[in-house]
């Protein structure tokens, strides 16, 4: 299996959209799934389906073993020290909410400062807005520079002993900006703050090492990295994780229960109340192994080639404005002068090309960019130079339909 022939591993690419072969450029929303993942899902339900951590029968033991094997794979994949630092949730958003509701509830006091970057997806913004409101803490935003990078001078000024947590993404879901994580985390730790990292956009696209990055919390979703929907991950430094109160309460997260009180399990199981998404967690392991076989460095440089080709294709249109931060990876956001992004996306779709348009669950960021909405092409390992060429043709069609010359 090589990256050149990888598209055939993904059954969905036999689909036609409006009579045209599917060109899928909405990978920042969710990725497509290879047969290996679909087979793992079917295989689990066909051969080992049972509830976990409960039965002593063979199927329950197998299901438990396979569920816990994914935890080990995830830990290895992001270089966590131990598998017990990995908590399974339902998505990245829930992972961040878990931190806000447990660590945040216990640690944030009136007047404390919470820093969020201007790049954040609503998932790493709204939980902190709510926490700040409830605790009478103050929320500050690390702004963008004019070249769409995070303003490190402003960050330095915002940081103080009052800062209790810094919330930052590894990669913007809208414009692809990759902030300098190590530098930001080191500076946050220097004032005694924790760092919540939203890794959803980068974890399937570049090598992740939570230890060398130095973050306290790292959240992501399986579905953006070839895995099934319904599986999120929270990594937390175990020294912090073991001090946190549970997030949800009920079965499976307890060691003993009496009518009046209960004793909770150790982390990470303390945070996984009720029957988890067993089958999807099991199948997630196949996604990780698929990515490992291709190699994260190979994927990162493939993405970079796609981004470079897309930027070059768009540069040929004077009416097109491209948002291209130097650190930008995996996606290209753009607007077309005189044409709303929804019209652009509708016409792309008529050519079989799936792109995202609108506010991208990052409304304050889009406002900062000074546009009402924008379109985004986002790439992954199965995209080809041919896909970029089809997208370019779709853009020419946009100009044709609206009777605009592409170069006024």
């Amino acid at each position, binding site marked *: 299996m090589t990256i050149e022939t990888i598209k055939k591993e993904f059954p969905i690419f036999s689909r036609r959209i409006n009579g045209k072969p599917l060109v899928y450029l909405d990978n920042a929303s969710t990725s497509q799934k290879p047969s290996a993942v679909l087979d793992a899902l079917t295989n689990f339900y066909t051969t080992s389906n049972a509830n976990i951590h409960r039965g002593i029968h063979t199927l329950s033991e197998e299901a438990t073993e396979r569920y816990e094997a994914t935890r080990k794979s995830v830990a290895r994949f992001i270089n966590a020290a131990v598998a017990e630092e990995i908590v399974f949730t339902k998505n990245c958003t829930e992972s961040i909410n878990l931190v806000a509701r447990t660590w945040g509830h216990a640690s944030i006091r009136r007047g404390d400062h919470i820093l969020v970057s201007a790049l954040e997806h609503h998932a790493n913004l709204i939980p902190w807005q709510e926490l700040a409101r409830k605790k009478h803490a103050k929320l500050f935003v690390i702004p963008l520079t004019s070249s769409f990078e995070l303003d490190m001078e402003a960050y330095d000024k915002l940081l103080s002993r009052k800062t209790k947590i810094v919330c930052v993404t590894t990669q913007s879901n809208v414009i692809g900006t990759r902030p300098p994580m190590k530098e930001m985390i080191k500076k946050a730790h220097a004032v005694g703050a924790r760092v919540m990292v939203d890794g959803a956009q980068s974890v399937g696209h570049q090598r992740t090492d939570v230890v060398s990055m130095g973050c306290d919390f790292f959240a992501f979703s399986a579905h953006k990295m070839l895995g099934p929907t319904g599986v999120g991950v929270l990594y937390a430094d175990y020294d912090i994780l073991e001090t946190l109160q549970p997030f949800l309460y009920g079965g499976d997260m307890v060691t003993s229960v009496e009518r009046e009180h209960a004793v909770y399990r150790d982390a990470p199981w303390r945070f996984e109340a009720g029957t988890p998404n067993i089958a999807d967690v099991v199948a997630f392991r196949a996604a990780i192994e698929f990515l490992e076989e291709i190699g994260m460095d190979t994927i990162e440089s493939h993405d970079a080639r796609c981004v470079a080709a897309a930027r070059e294709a768009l540069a040929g249109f004077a009416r097109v404005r491209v948002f291209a931060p130097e650190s930008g990876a995996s996606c290209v956001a753009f607007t077309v002068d005189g044409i*709303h992004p*929804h*019209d652009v996306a509708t*016409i792309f779709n008529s050519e079989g090309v799936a792109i995202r348009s609108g*506010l991208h669950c990052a409304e304050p960021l889009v406002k900062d960019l000074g546009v009402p909405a924008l379109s985004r092409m986002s790439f992954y390992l199965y995209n080809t130079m041919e896909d970029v060429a089809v997208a370019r043709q779709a853009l020419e*069609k946009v100009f044709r339909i*609206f009777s605009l010359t592409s170069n006024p």
Partner: protein
Amino acid sequence: MDLYTETILDHYEHPHHTGTLASPDVHVAEYNLLCGDRIELDCAFTNKGAIADVAFVGSGCALSQAGMSILSDWSIGKSRNDIAALSHDDVQSMIGSPITPARLKCALLGLGALKRIYEPYHSNS
């Protein structure tokens, strides 16, 4: 491309009833917050409370702006009851293009604005 008919594109590029009225009886605004579509609509009534004239300014996709233009043409002379009776289906057939569920809210932005002009809160008739 079925959605972008000549009618839609013509109304988008040369919308009817744009601008503002010199002395409107009501001024309403309707937004699709998630798309960033916006319409502000002025309306003047006849003595009997029917629509004498409308004018709108807006920004957004072709469907939302063309839809408002088409509805503006239709609305002149219509009564409160006509506006109340106007349905999603009516608007779809006026627009005349097949509209996918994802684009429906664009097409119906103008309808939302029209319905607002007779909301008691806005109306002085």
